[in-house]
């Protein structure tokens, strides 16, 4: 049976050998042929020498979630070979470096072995030792091109773009590619029964990772002060910001930076700096992952209580503790929603695509300043570090920033009886002043200790309760202005509902199609923000059974829903993948079908 544009290729490499760019080249060539593609880097927390995998899913239908079952494994790592052979689907293919003979006990009857002497070819054809190593990767890409019917012209173009100004690198790369392609031509039958065929399904989409997109969102969103401490998987967000800002934010007259980046001594200092900058009227952010959030929690409580704007990106990874630093999870939901001691609550924005990373990051500065509170962009490793096909990034040039309720010197002259924490408008959001605004008006003492409406220290119980209750009101305002959930139907079609958020979206949308193909009707909702929009409660109340799909062990979003919306836990079913790899549609389908065999109460 011929399968066009619907299969999974996995690469097994040793990290630090230059395989990542070759593998990306493979994915990009398919994308250039107009076919939806998603690529996942499954890598170790290590710099050199350990196994790393790269998984490319090609999907005519545009499914970008991870798919279980490998159709074609490209193996260039003897360390993981046994496991890699075992992971190929029955009837699938195993392409390996046959310079060394395959161990007979690894052999499997039910899959095809494609041996190509990658090392021999490179040793024979290239003299430079570095090229011998690097071009092994290009040779197997050439072999794949022939096996899967990818046009070599696409690679020619990609090399020309990649090596602009270093044109002499194009020819040897093309040579390596042809060596692989020709070897297949001479030794195997091709193309395989699964292959690619040119389409026009990609249209104007781009291929970008969420961290880069969020960094661009921060540039367009007006971030000027960035403080951070390196931690996987958030590091590339700040390095991208630095790269883009160094290109786009240089004062044309002086050559000086219209931004400041400080690599802090730890996450405590990183958030402290961002908060100090926010207090002083700059748009600031820091980016981190779970362990960093733990360290930042005390400061988040200060920013919540003293009502200071700051943006924090949490690119979630697998916890607890150090956990699996290079694997994905959605396991900081509760941590971020309630970070810090005492009664606190924080605004979360939960993007699912790089385009949303860009938009929500830019919007997060508006929300932080409007609400005068921390805003946490909750992404994950899969979204942050893997390239995703996404809509192009756009910016409305007429847009002005919403700086929130900030008083100018003139405002202060005309207002009588200003108090930093007075709820003048009844929305729970007070008016603030930026230091240095007016010689004699508007100064106040910002503090994390209990204070009255005039920011004066107070241990008076009534005052304390009044301020704490106003903060509740502020979060109610937040729920109204934050992004509404995405509804997958105009009207309810079913008693069964499905809720998901963030990158679970990809597998969940695919699962929704599969469920419907199986004759099960279900409505779906994607949560985009916390505190919860009222439509989330309506959706929960109007379905008898609701599946909440998440990538953590403890069903954290479910707990948050139960806690915040007082929904009967019995009707909330958990679907939980927390093995560190992105959830798949098959996994969701399996769990939902199992549950739906039992009658709904």
């Amino acid at each position, binding site marked *: 049976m011929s399968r066009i544009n619907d299969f999974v290729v996995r690469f097994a490499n040793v990290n630090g050998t230059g395989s990542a760019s070759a593998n990306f080249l493979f994915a990009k060539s398919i994308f250039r042929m107009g076919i939806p593609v998603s690529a996942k880097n499954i890598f170790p927390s290590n710099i050199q020498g350990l196994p790393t995998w790269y998984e490319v899913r090609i999907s005519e239908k545009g499914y970008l979630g991870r798919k279980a079952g490998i159709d074609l494994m490209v193996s260039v790592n003897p360390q993981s070979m046994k496991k890699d052979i075992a992971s190929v689907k029955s009837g699938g293919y195993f392409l390996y470096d046959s310079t060394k003979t395959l161990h007979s006990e690894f052999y499997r009857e039910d899959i095809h072995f494609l041996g190509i002497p990658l090392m021999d070819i490179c040793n024979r054809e290239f003299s430079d030792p570095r090229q011998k190593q690097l071009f092994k990767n290009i040779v197997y890409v050439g072999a794949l091109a022939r096996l899967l019917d990818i046009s070599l012209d696409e690679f020619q173009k990609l090399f020309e773009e990649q090596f602009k100004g270093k044109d002499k690198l194009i020819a040897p790369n093309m040579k390596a590619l042809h060596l692989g392609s020709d070897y297949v031509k001479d030794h195997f039958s091709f193309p395989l029964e699964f292959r690619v065929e040119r389409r026009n399904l990609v249209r104007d989409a781009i291929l970008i990772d969420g961290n880069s997109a969020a960094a661009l969102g921060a540039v367009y969103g007006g971030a000027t002060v960035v403080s951070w401490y390196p931690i996987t998987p958030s590091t590339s967000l700040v390095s991208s910001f630095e790269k883009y800002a160094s290109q786009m934010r240089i004062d044309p007259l002086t050559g000086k930076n*219209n931004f400041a980046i400080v690599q802090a001594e730890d996450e405590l200092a990183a958030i402290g700096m961002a908060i100090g900058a926010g207090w002083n009227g700059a748009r600031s952010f820091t980016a981190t992952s779970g362990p960093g959030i733990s360290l930042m929690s005390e400061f988040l409580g200060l920013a919540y209580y003293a009502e200071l704007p700051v943006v924090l990106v949490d690119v979630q990874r697998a916890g607890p503790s150090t956990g699996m630093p290079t694997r994905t999870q959605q396991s900081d939901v509760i941590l971020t929603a309630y970070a810090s001691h005492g009664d606190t609550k924080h605004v979360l924005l939960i993007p699912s695509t790089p385009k949303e990373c860009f938009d929500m990051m830019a919007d997060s500065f508006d929300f932080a300043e409007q609400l005068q509170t921390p805003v946490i962009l909750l992404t994950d490793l899969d979204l942050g570090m893997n390239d995703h096909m996404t809509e192009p990034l756009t*910016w409305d040039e007429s847009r002005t920033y919403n700086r929130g309720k900030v008083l100018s010197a003139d405002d202060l002259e005309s207002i009588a009886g200003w108090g930093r924490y007075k709820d003048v408008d009844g929305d729970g959001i007070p008016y603030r002043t930026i230091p240095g605004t007016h010689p004699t008006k508007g100064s106040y003492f910002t*503090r994390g200790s209990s204070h009255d409406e005039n920011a004066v220290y107070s241990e008076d119980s009534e005052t304390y309760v009044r301020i704490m209750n106003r903060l509740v009101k502020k979060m109610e305002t937040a729920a109204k202005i934050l992004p509404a959930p995405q509804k997958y139907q105009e009207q309810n079609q079913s008693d069964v509902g499905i809720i998901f958020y963030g990158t679970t979206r990809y597998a969940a949308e695919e699962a929704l199609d599969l469920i419907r193909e199986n004759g099960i009707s279900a409505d779906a909702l994607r949560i985009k923000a916390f505190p919860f929009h009222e439509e989330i409660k309506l959706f929960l109340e109007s379905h008898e059974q609701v599946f909440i799909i998440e990538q953590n062990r403890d069903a954290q979003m479910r707990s948050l829903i139960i806690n915040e919306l007082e929904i009967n836990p019995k009707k909330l079913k958990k679907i939980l993948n927390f093995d560190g790899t992105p959830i798949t549609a098959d996994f969701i389908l399996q769990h939902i079908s199992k549950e739906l065999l039992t009658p709904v109460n």
Partner: protein
Amino acid sequence: MTYIKPKFHHPRLPKNDLGYNKKDYEGSISTLCAGCGHDSISAAIVDACFELNIEPHRVAKMSGIGCSSKTPAYFLSNSHGFNSVHGRMPSVTTGANLANRSMVYLGVSGDGDTASIGMGQFVHVMRRNLNMTYIVMNNGCYGLTKGQDSATADYGSISKSGHVNTFEGIDLCALAIELGATYVAQSFSGDKSQLVPLIKAALAHNGFSLINVISPCVTFNNNQGSTKSYDYVREHNQAMNILDFIPVRDEIKTSYAADEDKMVELHDGSTIKLHKISPDWNPEDKLSIVMALQKARQQHQILTGLLYLDRESVELNDLINATHTPLNQLSEKELVPPLSVLEAINQNLR
């Protein structure tokens, strides 16, 4: 102690060049113990800012947690203040300074807030040469939690409860010099004539200024056997210099002929006149002050005065090539790149 601050101002209070009188630099009434050294430091800050003609609203008062960190409420009430979290004042000040480099940043901290919980941030803010004045109100104990030893308590010092400190105290000035602070001074809360010019020069300095002020805790660490009591500090204080700060616009009227007088000009043109008492030491020579501090430690002396100054100091904003316009004053015009830039990026990602 009075709890209600009188509103009466003398009509003929002297005014500074900006037309402010000293009352304009005061804060609300202190709630610290009567006789607390910290209140004297607050008063010195008021004097320094008044005499320097600093507009109060151009100052940001930063602090952490502890008795010392409460003091920003007791001076410069027309300035914004930020009482942050314990030991984290340096990071908040760093962010605030990056957001608006044109203001004056005055941080106050204690020995617990600096030398224990805040050691990490203290060390790094010096390394980065943040343009701020950092005053440590150092009493060698935790006042708010009733007198436990702090990390600056000297070895063998006896607390009010009779506890003998068995650990070496951290010498903040020696540490600061080692870590690249560009202005390091030490003083005593009871010596206003020394403290006020030190604060003025620190505020004028273009970079990180540390003033470690021994400030006795009258309630928990002013007893016999304590090395941070009023009596002990008075007996062991050895001034390295007598100094005078001359702002940029003031004409230098006195002539300084004596061998040990030194005129040190700061980046903004203001001048420090130093009358050196200790001849084998030069405030711009790290080695000599490191040696002097070590000697003093052995001899149980407290060196006070301006200990070290780097006039070539380059502050953080310039180290990272930040624009001179305060970042918090940039608008969409400077911040938003053209849409065409984004479109070009999209094109490269196809």
